[in-house]
């Protein structure tokens, strides 16, 4: 089993962890979004509540949740460890740094990642914790969502979400295609397609997520 440790503690092994967990989370975002789109159905939240009830009670989902949390943890912990190592790799910095032609979004992965992590905690606290721990009997998930975005944080909770989604977009913009590069999937024919797909994904998915708070804050009528 020595090879396992050697592989996953090597620089490329760590990239592998980042890319696989990253791709897994990218996949999760899509499923999460598909469920959340139920919020836009004009049925006073019936469909969404039904869906949420299933998500919070189904044993299969519970098991998958563990996998999801593991995915997040690996991605975050590995990311933090890599960032620390990378910082240490240049003990004395440059006095002057001019923008090279490397992609803009790629430079701020730890920063955007950190913000998304904070967002994640707040997000889980607002919804998951609230329904499972604070008010276990409350099944009006829809009401929680609409209240949070309409009134939360003195009316600014929605804005925090939109900001988080913008940063998520930045993170995904680089992360999507970077994951393929880390896996060694760079190909003259397919890489341009992956890049385009990644850019599209990084705009469409966060935009759709961001549409939810915007909708509740500005367009929702009870």
């Amino acid at each position, binding site marked *: 089993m020595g*090879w396992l440790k*050697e*592989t996953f503690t*090597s*620089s*490329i*092994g*760590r*990239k*592998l962890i980042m890319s696989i967990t990253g791709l897994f989370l990218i996949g999760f975002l899509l499923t999460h979004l598909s469920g959340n789109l139920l919020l836009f159905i004009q049925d006073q939240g019936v469909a969404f509540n039904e869906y949420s009830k299933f998500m919070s009670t189904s044993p299969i989902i519970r098991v998958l949740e563990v996998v999801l949390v593991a995915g997040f943890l690996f991605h975050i912990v590995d990311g933090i460890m*890599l960032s620390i*190592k*990378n910082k*240490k*790799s*240049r*003990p*004395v*910095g*440059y*006095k*002057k*740094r*001019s923008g*090279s*032609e*490397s*992609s803009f979004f*790629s*430079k701020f*992965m730890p920063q955007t990642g950190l913000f998304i992590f904070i967002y994640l905690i707040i997000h889980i606290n607002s919804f998951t914790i609230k329904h499972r721990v604070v008010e276990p009997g409350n099944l009006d998930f829809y009401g929680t969502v609409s209240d949070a975005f309409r009134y939360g944080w003195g009316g600014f909770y929605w804005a925090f979400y939109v900001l988080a989604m913008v940063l998520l977009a930045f993170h995904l913009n*680089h992360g999507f*295609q*970077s994951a393929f*590069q*880390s*896996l*060694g*999937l*760079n190909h*003259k024919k397919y*890489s341009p397609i992956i890049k385009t797909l990644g850019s599209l994904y990084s705009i469409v998915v966060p935009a759709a997520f961001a549409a939810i708070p915007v909708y509740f804050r500005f367009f929702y009528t009870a």
Partner: protein
Amino acid sequence: MKLTLEVWRQKNSEDKGKFETYTLDNANEHMSFLEMLDVLNEKLTKEGKDPVAFSHDCREGICGSCGCVINGRPHGPDEEVATCQLHMRKFEDGQKITIEPWRAKGFPVLKDLVVDRSAFDRIMHAGGFITVSTGSAVDANLMPIPKAIADEAFSAANCIGCGACVAACKNASAMLFVAAKVSHLALLPQGQAEKTERVKKMVKAMDQEGFGNCTNTGACEAECPKSISIRHIARMNREYLSASIASE
């Protein structure tokens, strides 16, 4: 040309080092950047001061000796050049130029702008070769290699080992350098016999030298004087993963 030069001065690897500012009145736009430093050094010598130490040799962009970060860019404000090929016409009269050494844990500063890049050699010792003793080679044309493969191998073998990739990377990662050699030898049929061991050994050696990790920003290929592409890094990743995980 009149120039203000802000140059990193450090007596030796123990010294803390600091920036010194010099003015130069007699530069001109036809000079190469290193010739401008020569002129500065003549002036400093005449003034009884210690000249600025910098690495250089061939002065035509192939030996890979030279390299400093000039106004924030490795090898300065020109494309596809080593520092020695940079000319002063890329600067303006009266401009201030900040000159710093490569900065990386893997490249300790020895003096002023001179850094120790022996880490690169150690990575090469680990496996940057094909095991073939002198005299044991078969006829060169016994093994046809498609032109496209040979050209792709050349595009990696082109590396001059200057270290600009490390200097440019925000993580001081040496992946492009290592990938260039791994990719070059992995592409060629001659390199197949040792390819799984080679990539594992070289990556291990690289990790031991204290370079940072690749985050696929592409800064390295943007500053590489030989425009070596990060698709070679992808090839190394592929080689490494198949060597570590798929191979028995």
